[in-house]
């Protein structure tokens, strides 16, 4: 794919195309007519003040809202051109292709090994040697291998918060998704653990498309290629991160970036 692309164009293939997305919690509309393109092999950050709908938006990208009664999603999200909200689409296969890492680390109450191989096992891999390989590869890519390689059969709950979050990333990587969604993956972590996760995200975009929610503008600036700004359920602006941070098109974006919002 890379080789066929002219080196000069900065434009990437669109991995996810969001079109006129609306999300309702009962009567309350949390996302209003949002549209954006998520480019392949890039990191796209979602920023905005608390309660503006970032989590609501990102959870619509892999049909996580299906799990909660009372939530209605309208509009289109196309993965490689195919609408994931289409009639015959199985949300389970969508979530296999679009993985998600959550704000609070949520390792299963199982061993470290069992956590990483959970996904591959569910998708039918049962060969022990292959599973062990998958486990090591996942943990290596999540930059956790060296810390846990001697304790794979210990409970994942004994890991530190930062390690747990990298384990959750390893767990997602092990199912080989195409897109990884992250909802404030570092917000419960200390600065050192955070910078490890940030480095990791930089690595991940070589192989994956990453969408990340963050409440830290510095973090968005450090790790993302594209940034979109949400306010009160509206997607106000999307552009390359440097554009959005240095010359925002919308006054409200500028106010937020310069700290004039809470």
């Amino acid at each position, binding site marked *: 794919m890379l080789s066929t692309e002219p080196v000069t164009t900065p434009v990437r293939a669109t991995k996810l195309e969001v079109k006129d997305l609306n999300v309702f919690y009962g009567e309350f509309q949390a996302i209003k007519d949002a549209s954006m393109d998520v480019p392949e092999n890039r990191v796209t950050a979602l920023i905005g003040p608390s309660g503006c709908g970032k989590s609501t938006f990102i959870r619509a990208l892999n049909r996580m809202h299906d*799990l909660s009664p009372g939530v209605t999603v309208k509009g289109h999200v196309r993965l490689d051109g195919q609408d994931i909200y289409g009639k015959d689409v199985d949300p*389970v296969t969508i979530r296999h*292709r679009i993985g998600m890492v959550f704000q609070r680390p949520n390792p299963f*109450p199982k061993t470290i090994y069992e956590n990483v191989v959970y996904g591959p096992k569910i998708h039918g891999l049962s060969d022990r040697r292959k599973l062990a390989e998958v486990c090591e590869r996942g943990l290596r890519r999540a930059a956790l291998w060296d810390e846990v390689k001697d304790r794979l059969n210990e409970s994942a709950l004994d890991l530190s918060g930062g390690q747990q979050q990298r384990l959750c990333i390893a767990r997602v990587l092990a*199912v080989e998704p195409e897109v990884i969604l992250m909802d404030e993956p570092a917000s419960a972590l200390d600065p050192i653990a955070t910078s490890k996760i940030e480095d990791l995200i930089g690595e991940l975009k070589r192989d994956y498309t990453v969408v990340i929610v963050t409440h830290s503008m510095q973090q968005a600036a450090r790790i993302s290629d594209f940034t979109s700004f949400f306010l009160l359920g509206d997607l106000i602006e999307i552009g390359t991160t440097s554009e959005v941070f240095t010359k925002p098109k919308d006054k409200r974006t500028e106010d937020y970036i310069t700290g004039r919002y809470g």
Partner: protein
Amino acid sequence: MTATTPSTATPFVRKDNASQRRLADAVATGLLWTAALGIVLLLAVFIGYLLYLGAHVISWHFLTAPPSEISAGGGIGPEIFNSFYILVLTLIFTVPVATAAGIYLQEYARPGLFNSTVQFCAESLATIPSIVMGLFGLIVFVQVLHWHFTALGGALALTLLNLPALMRVTQEGLASVPQALREGSMALGATKWQTIRRVVLPGSIAPLTTGIILIAGRIIGETAVLIYTAGVSVSPGRSAFNWNPFHPAETLSVHLWYTHSEGLVPDAVDIGNGSALVLLLIVLVFNISARILGRGLSRHFTGK
């Protein structure tokens, strides 16, 4: 808030206030501790008293011999067997149905008319007194179906009686598994059933097991419902182990009631005390093993 209650607005100022609060804390702690100690003492006295009354009755003969109708020296062998036999039958019927219903209600059913109807029915079923369920069993199993007094009839009546509680235990066990774990599993492309089987059920195995054993302890002690369904006699002349579910099967607790209130044997009081002690010990063993097993299982399933 601060405007209307000025006294709470300056809580850290006065010294005597602090010592007052410390006193209140000490009093509260003392009261709670006394109440807790009281419960422990009550149980100890109760067990001690039953031991005093019944310990001398218990012998190998008493535990294994069949009961006697007229003369002294009867045992409770068949009753002990029947208690466990009916318990096992009941659990075989109850656990799968209650678990399935609990899983459905907790994990699949969307809030709505059907869900609340089932919940309401379960709650109503749970409030039916044991003796009424016994009469129901008498009519259905003994009279309409002509089974007469049977272990099976007793077990089925017990099943009806305990289904709601076990369903509730299942639901509470499942509800104790954080939603974040379900989401984590689904976000890896797992189906709902895979998530339930591999994450939710293992995560709730400890409360489920504990709950089942505690309910088993209650079933072992059930009496009223069994008097009308499983009967007050054991098949005479047979060994202690009667596996036929269509035979009458007096349990230990029924025997306890029967010898005390209707028994003709001269040593009825002794037999009653001995039975009570054995029953109590069985129930205690259930409760203790529920705790131990629950702890062990949760450690096993969390990989700790």
